[in-house]
C-alpha cells in the first residue's frame, strides 16, 4: 500500500473517531455513549466501604455468606434508583470488604442506614380483607413471629414430583415449631416470604408441615432458585457490617476539577506543540498532527470501552501525551544524525524509524508492565483493586498503546508523503 493510501485510511479512522468523540447526538442505532463516563471524583457522589465481621462464621460458609451479603447490599443499593451504582467485594489479609459507589448521592447518612441494615427475613400470613361493595377483594400481610433468625439453612433442591428446581428451608427447632403452627393455621392459603420488606415468594400451603423443613416450589429456573437460596441464607446469616471508609464529593467540586484540568490540559498541549515546532520545525508539525490524531482516538476509545474517567485518570492521559511525543523525539533526533550519512532523505528517514523502534518498543513495554501492575486487571487481592491508582493506570496504558500507533504509523506515513512531494518539486 502506498503512503498516500495509508494516509487516506488514517484520515478516515480519524474522522470516525472524531465523530465518536464529539458530543453530538448519534442515531439511536449506534450504541455509543454520548458523554465520557465520569468517576465519582468528577461527577460527584459517594463511595462507602463496609467491612464484614465474619469472625462468627465458619470458614466453609464464609464465601457463600459474603456472596449473599454482596447480593443483599446490591439489592438495597438498587432501591436508590440511581444510575449505575457499583457494588464489589474486596478481600485483603483476612478482611472482607464491600465497596459501594453511588454516583450523584451526597447524603451518605441515609445510604449507610439502608445498606448497613441486617437482612430481614419475615414470614407473613395473608389476611384477606373482604371488600364492602363486593368488588375485588384486597389482601394485607400480617407478619408472624417466624423470621430469618429461625432459619438454619437454605439450599437449592429439586422437586421430587416435577423435577424442577426448588429451594429448601431448614428451620431451627424453635423455628420448626413456629412453622408448624403457621402452616396449620393457613392450610389452603398462601404464606408470604418477605425479604427486606419485599415479597420474594408466596407459596400456597397444602398441609400442616412438621419436622422443621420446608420447600419453596414455583416455576424457578435453576439460577432463580440459586439466587433465592442465597438471599434466604443472607437472611439466615446476616453478616454484621461496619463502615470503614466514606468519601463524598460534591458535584460542584467535580465540575470545577473538570474545567480546571481541561484548561491545564489545553495549555500544556499547546506548549508541547509549540515546543515541537520550535525544536524540529517541519518535523515538529508532523508530530503535532500525530498528537491531534492521538487525542481524538483516545477520546473515542474512552467512550467505546468505556473508561471511567477520574481525576488521576486525566493526569494519566496528560502524562501519556508526553510519552506520545517521546516516540517522535526519538525518531527525529535519530533523523538528524542519519541525515548526513545518507544521500537520500527518504533513506535516512526509514533508517531512523527502524533504529528508533528498538528503544521505543523496549521502553514502552517496561512502562506497560508497571501500568499493568497498577491497573491490576486480574483483581489480585494483594494489589490495589479499586480507586484512583487503577484509574490512572488504565488511561496511562491506553495512552501508551495509542501513542505507539500515532507516534510510529501516523507520523511515518505522513513523513513519507511529505519527503516524496518535496523531491518531486525539486
Amino acid at each position, binding site marked *: 500500500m502506498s503512503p498516500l493510501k495509508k494516509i487516506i485510511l488514517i484520515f478516515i479512522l480519524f474522522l470516525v473517531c472524531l465523530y465518536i468523540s464529539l458530543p453530538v447526538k448519534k442515531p439511536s442505532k449506534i450504541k455509543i455513549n454520548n458523554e465520557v463516563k465520569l468517576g465519582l471524583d468528577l461527577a460527584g457522589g459517594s463511595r462507602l466501604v463496609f467491612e464484614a465481621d465474619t469472625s462468627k462464621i465458619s470458614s466453609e460458609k464464609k464465601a457463600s455468606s459474603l456472596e449473599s451479603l454482596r447480593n443483599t447490599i446490591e439489592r438495597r443499593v438498587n432501591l436508590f434508583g440511581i444510575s449505575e451504582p457499583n457494588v464489589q467485594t474486596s478481600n485483603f489479609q483476612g478482611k472482607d470488604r464491600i465497596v459501594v459507589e453511588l454516583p450523584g448521592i451526597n447524603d451518605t447518612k441515609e445510604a449507610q442506614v439502608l445498606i448497613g441494615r441486617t437482612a430481614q427475613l419475615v414470614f407473613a400470613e395473608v389476611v384477606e380483607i373482604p371488600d364492602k361493595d363486593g368488588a375485588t377483594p384486597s389482601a394485607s400481610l400480617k407478619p408472624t413471629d417466624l423470621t430469618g433468625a429461625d432459619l438454619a439453612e437454605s439450599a437449592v433442591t429439586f422437586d421430587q414430583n416435577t423435577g424442577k428446581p426448588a429451594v429448601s428451608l431448614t428451620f431451627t427447632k424453635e423455628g420448626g415449631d413456629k412453622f408448624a403452627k403457621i402452616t396449620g393455621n393457613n392450610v389452603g392459603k398462601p404464606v408470604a416470604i418477605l425479604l427486606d420488606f419485599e415479597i420474594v415468594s408466596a407459596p400456597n400451603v397444602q398441609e400442616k408441615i412438621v419436622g422443621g423443613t420446608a420447600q419453596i416450589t414455583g416455576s424457578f429456573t435453576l439460577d432463580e432458585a440459586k439466587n433465592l437460596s442465597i438471599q434466604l441464607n443472607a437472611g439466615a446469616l446476616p453478616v454484621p457490617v461496619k463502615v470503614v471508609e466514606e468519601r463524598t464529593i460534591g458535584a460542584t467540586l467535580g465540575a470545577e476539577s473538570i474545567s480546571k484540568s481541561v484548561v491545564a490540559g489545553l495549555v500544556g498541549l499547546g506548549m508541547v506543540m509549540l515546543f515541537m515546532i520550535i525544536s524540529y520545525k517541519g518535523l515538529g508539525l508532523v508530530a503535532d498532527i500525530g498528537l491531534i490524531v492521538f487525542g481524538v482516538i483516545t477520546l473515542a476509545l474512552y467512550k467505546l470501552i468505556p473508561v471511567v474517567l477520574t481525576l488521576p485518570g486525566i493526569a494519566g492521559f496528560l502524562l501519556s501525551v508526553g510519552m506520545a511525543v517521546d516516540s517522535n523525539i526519538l525518531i527525529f533526533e535519530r533523523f538528524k544524525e542519519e541525515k548526513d550519512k545518507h544521500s537520500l532523505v527518504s533513506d535516512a528517514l526509514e533508517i531512523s524509524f527502524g533504529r528508533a523502534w528498538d528503544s521505543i518498543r523496549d521502553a514502552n513495554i517496561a512502562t506497560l508492565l508497571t501500568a499493568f501492575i*497498577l491497573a491490576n486487571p486480574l483483581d489480585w487481592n494483594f494489589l490495589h483493586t479499586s480507586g484512583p491508582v487503577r484509574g490512572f493506570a488504565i488511561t496511562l496504558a491506553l495512552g501508551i498503546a495509542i501513542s505507539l500507533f500515532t507516534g510510529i504509523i501516523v507520523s511515518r506515513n505522513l513523513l513519507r508523503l511529505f519527503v516524496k512531494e518535496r523531491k518531486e518539486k525539486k
Partner: protein
Amino acid sequence: MISEAWPTASVNWMKYRWLYLVISGTVIFCGIFSLYKWRLKLGVDFTGGTLIEYKFSDGKKQVFKYSPTDEKDLEKIRLDFKNQKTEEVRFENVGPSIGPELIKKTITAIIISAGGILLWITLRFKSFKFGLSAVLGMFHDSLVLVGSFSLLGHFMGVEVDFLFVTALLTTLSFSVHDTIVNYDRIREIKKKSGGELYDIANEATSETMVRSLNNSFTIIFMLLALILLGGETIKWFAVALLIGTVSGTYSSPFVSVAILVTWDRLEKKLRKI
C-alpha cells in the same frame, strides 16, 4: 531549542562519576535525614480520620481535618457548618484499617514492578548488570521523591495521600523508560563498533542527551500546566510527578549508566588480580 546549540562532540561524562555520586548522595542524604527526623506528613488516607471541605458563601473554600473522632462530634460539626450556610463540597472519612493496607499493597506493587522490570531488562539486554543498574536507578528516584515529600511536609505542610502513591509508582516506570532508551544506544554502539563500556557509555550518553532533555521538557510542560492551573486537588500530585520526572531524567545516565560503568570496571580490576 537546545538541540541546535548542544555540543555533539564526545564529552567524557563518565569521568565525573564522583560528582554524580556527590549530587545524588547529598539529595538522598537530605531526604533520609528528613525522613528520620520528621518522617512523612501522612494524610487521612493513611492515618484514618475525617477531612471535610467547605465552600463559604463568599466562594472561598477551606479544608478541615479531624482525627478519628466519634460519630456524634462529627455530626455536630457538620450541622454547625450547615447552619452557617456553607456548602459541604467534599467529605472523606477513613477508618484506621485502610492505611496499613494501602502501604502493604504499595510495597507489593513496587516489588512486583521492580522484579518484572529487572527480568525484562535482563532478558532484552542479556545482562543482569543492566537489569540491576536500572532497578537501582529506579530506587534512587523513589528515594529522591519520598525524601522531597518528607521535606515538603515539614516545611510546607504537604501531606502524603493516595495520589502520592500513584505518583511514586509512575516515577518507577518513567525512570526505567528513560534508562532503556540510554541502554538501547549502548547496545547498538556495542554491536556496531565494540570497545570499552566506559567509552561506549560516554558516546551513548552524548547521543541520547538531547532526546532525554527534550522529552523531559514536554512532560514538564504538561505537569507545569497541571500544577499552575489544575486546581488544588491535583497540585501536589503533579508536583510529585514533576520531581519524579526530573530525577528520572537525571538518574538514567548519571545513576544507572554510572553504576553500570563502575560495576564493569570493578569486575575487570578484580579479574586482573
